[in-house]
């Protein structure tokens, strides 16, 4: 079980959080303009990386805020936590 540093509440047990999949997939502003393939790409296609992955999490049993984390999926080390709308760390 991880300990996640919620940007609003601080360090909490993983059981208070829910994972929300890959981060930085923006909902298209004009879905109707997209082809079936483009829409399917947004809907279904997700990376599943062994290594550094950007992920969405929500403090479901806490402040209910969504935020992003950078996690190494090979050893579960959380490299960074940042709020929605903030730029992902580059290093």
């Amino acid at each position, binding site marked *: *079980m991880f300990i996640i540093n919620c940007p609003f509440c601080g360090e909490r047990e993983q059981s208070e959080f829910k994972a929300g999949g890959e981060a930085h997939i*923006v*909902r298209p502003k004009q*879905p*109707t303009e997209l082809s079936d393939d483009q*829409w399917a790409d947004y809907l279904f296609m997700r990376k599943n990386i062994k290594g550094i992955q950007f992920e969405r999490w*929500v403090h479901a049993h806490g402040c209910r805020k*969504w935020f992003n984390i950078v996690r190494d999926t090979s*050893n579960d080390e959380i490299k960074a936590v940042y709020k*929605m709308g903030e730029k992902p760390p580059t290093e």
Partner: protein
Amino acid sequence: MTKNLRVKSSKFIDETYRISFEFNGIKYYGFKGDTLASALLANDIHLVGRSFKYHRPRGIMTAGSEEPNAIIQLHNNSSRTEPNVRATEVEIYEGLEASSQNCWPSVNFDISGINNFLSPIFPAGFYYKTFMWPASFWKKYEYFIRKAAGLGKSPTKPDPDIYEHKFVHCDVLVIGAGISGIMAAKTAAKNGLKTLLIDEKPYLGGSTIYQNSQHFKINNQISSSWLEKEINEIKKLKNLEIKTRTSVAAFHGYNFLLARESISDHLPIEQRKNKTRHKLLKIRAKKVITATGSIERPLVFNNNDRPGILLSSAIKKYADLFGVACGNKNILLTNNDSAYETAISLIQKGIKVEAIIDNREKIHSKLLYNVEKNNIKIFKGFTIVDTSGYKRINKISIMQLSKDGQKVIGSKINLSCDCLGISGGWTPAVHLFTQSGGKLTFREEDQVFIPNIYPSTQLSIGACNGDLTLDEIFTNVPKSLKEFLNIKNTDYENIEILSSTNKSKRNIWLLPSDKILGKTKPFVDYQNDATAKDIKLALREGFRSIEHVKRYTTTGMGTDQGKLGNMHALGIISETTGVKMNELGTTTFRPPYTPLTFGTIVGRNIGEYFDIFRKTPIHDWHVNNKAEFENVGQWKRAWYYPKKNENMHQAVQRESKAARESAGILDASTLGKIDIQGTDASEFLNRIYTNAWSKLAIGKCRYGLMLNEDGMVYDDGVTTRLGENHYIMTTTTGGAANVMGKLEDYLQTEWPELDVYLTSVTDHFATVSVCGPNSKKILSQVIPDLDLSDENFPHMSFKNAKISKINCRVMRISFTGEHSYEINIQANYGKSIWEKCMEAGKEFNITPYGTETMHLLRAEKGFIIVGQDTDATMTPIDLQMNWIVSKKKYDFIGKRSLYRSDTIREDRKQLVGLLTDNPNEVLEEGAQIVADINKSPIEMLGHVTSSYYSPNLKKSIALGVVRGGKNMMGQKLIIPMEKKNINVTVSDPVFLDKENKRLNA
């Protein structure tokens, strides 16, 4: 009484405190401090069980948690019975009853023992190969196999014991209280760190605490005396908590560990009442120090599994700690110096050592010279090629090893014995380290895996880190502790060590015999009866991955997880295939390290606490009025209210008729309620629902359908506009939390620019729904001040009202198709409003109805229930609900998906009504729907989703999803059931009052 092999008093055994116990129905005695294994050995009992596959007689092999053979059943046929318990870990208590497992009719005469003589037909993979064909026969084979094999019996009665879970936080957790663990705990605690030291055994000090040899000294004191003083000191440390009888089961990432603290297992049964049996500790440690020691390796040679063959270190422990001789004529087989430590202990206690067989040829060892001085014959460069004695070893045959160790040469020498100690060197106990994600490296000199890459803030010290001797410990442990704990000094600088061990070792994974391998039985995994032969067979058959070989041969898959034999399995694979050990790697060690009982895992979460449930404010009334309940999500909902002698069907028929003919009342408090406020609330609803919301007037209600982005129906419910920027949304009972989460997700991540605030108010309101032609009359009594005329209060509208000064919200909405009101009131008034409605409705025979009647009434109207008539593959178009999908809105969640190539297919499953040709035949929900019964295989078109007998229509009605069903109106279909085929006709899903006249009746 059998022989007494108690040799010399030990300070760990209280000989003034005699304890009686039963083993296989016979009464024996032991002393306080004994384990079941030591007490049995003291009574000269080695044979305790039969092996899993061949039912070979097996004896006690070790003195610790790694025991593969002495697996027993405690308190057979009682509610406290427990299978697969290691006799080496059970502390005896008055009244203990233990019995052998895996033998029938008895351990001394086991019918399946014949498997042993049939063993050529039981090679690796035998069960897979033989009993899997033909597949249909497996059921028949399984019954007999399970009867003949199988370890232990699980209890059939409820567990009478209490179990608890506890969270523990500390700066430093030290696992293992051997010499290294004691040093670590003392250093951490003395430096102001909150420290927890735990050990699986009842005493502290590991194997050093009974090391009474002149050959091992610390600062000129015998190592056990030195350690005893250390232990007395740490017991006084304020920052240190010590837990014995506590076994770490799992070491997870982020230094999260689970440990089982055994509190009452060592007490007589009558003293356990009202005491917690086990505590499951959920530990979060800032730093973890693993000091789990090492496990002695057996040696793999022909017939190495007879009762009377033990690990050499176990024989030493039984002598030194328990004062028990494992035999009167002992022989030791070794490839390293450890066996000489055992010999010295035995000599000290006057226990006879006949000979030592050492695989090594040239040895310069102080320990060896000391043993030789006592006129004990040492066979250097020899090995055992065979043993004999069916239920107890009585003879060994030895031969000289060839230079390369692959063959035996010379002539055979026979030696008689009643006990054989074997030592193949030591395996660092890295199980917990690897569980936590640690990576190992292989050390060639002594052929051991040791920790290499640490995944979290942790440290391995002492034997589990490969520091196997006293001088290595004192050289390395203080240094690592200083670095790991960031401190300058320990109490262990400049300590003088006398350590006589010679580190040389002659490692031969599979010792040769004069017979060919095929004619021998060199066991690698004792519990699962896997031999070196089986491993070689698996390799010949093409298995290469260690994980595959493990599963095929079942090596390491017993309750002991191969703590003894895994290294030999790896070694044999490495030798046979030529792949280096480091590349081969180990199999994954999985939690728990030693088995946990289910009681420990569930703790207090049993019975009504197994899964918490939610009650509405009106719950007590339902209970008092004999409602039957059903679980909906976490809620307990009233299902139906049977009157005397009524079954469910009769109750539901009565309730449904009353609701349509006069008045019904339903507790709808469980529906999810979300308060939505903000200047962009209307826009928000436009984006999340399929229909339009901007034009909804204040005081009006509207039904909405919510989709997933993939276009599939997610939830539904009525939302009411309370003010310009204020809405209250209702969701399904089961979907409330998920809907709330989904809405928050979109608000925070996709549309942060919207000014909208969401609050879950499900628990804040009680909801009472009154329906039926007389509902208006009832409501006019309950809320006399409210103008209920259709002009003032039409269908799908809302009014604020007061019931004796209490504010409430009244919605005129209907899920039954009847004229109907929903009163929402502050939760704690829920029950009194309900009772008020019951009182006012008395003259109209107001009838409380439960969820089953609600489902029937809505099915008559063809209203869907999300999750029953839909699954995650139904679009609103599939549900024939095109009317609710706005064509004008530019976008809403899921819109784009409604015209993907897949969702516009005409032959998708669509929701239809189903009428049985026989109006009294009620379909089974979930039944398959087909068109052509003669086609093979029969093509499934869909299934029945809802089905009832409608008392109002006096016929059976059903909803179902059917491929292309939309265009099948009036068509005949078939529901094939086990005993008959039922003919149905596809119909409109609305069965009653298509014109909605009843809403205003």
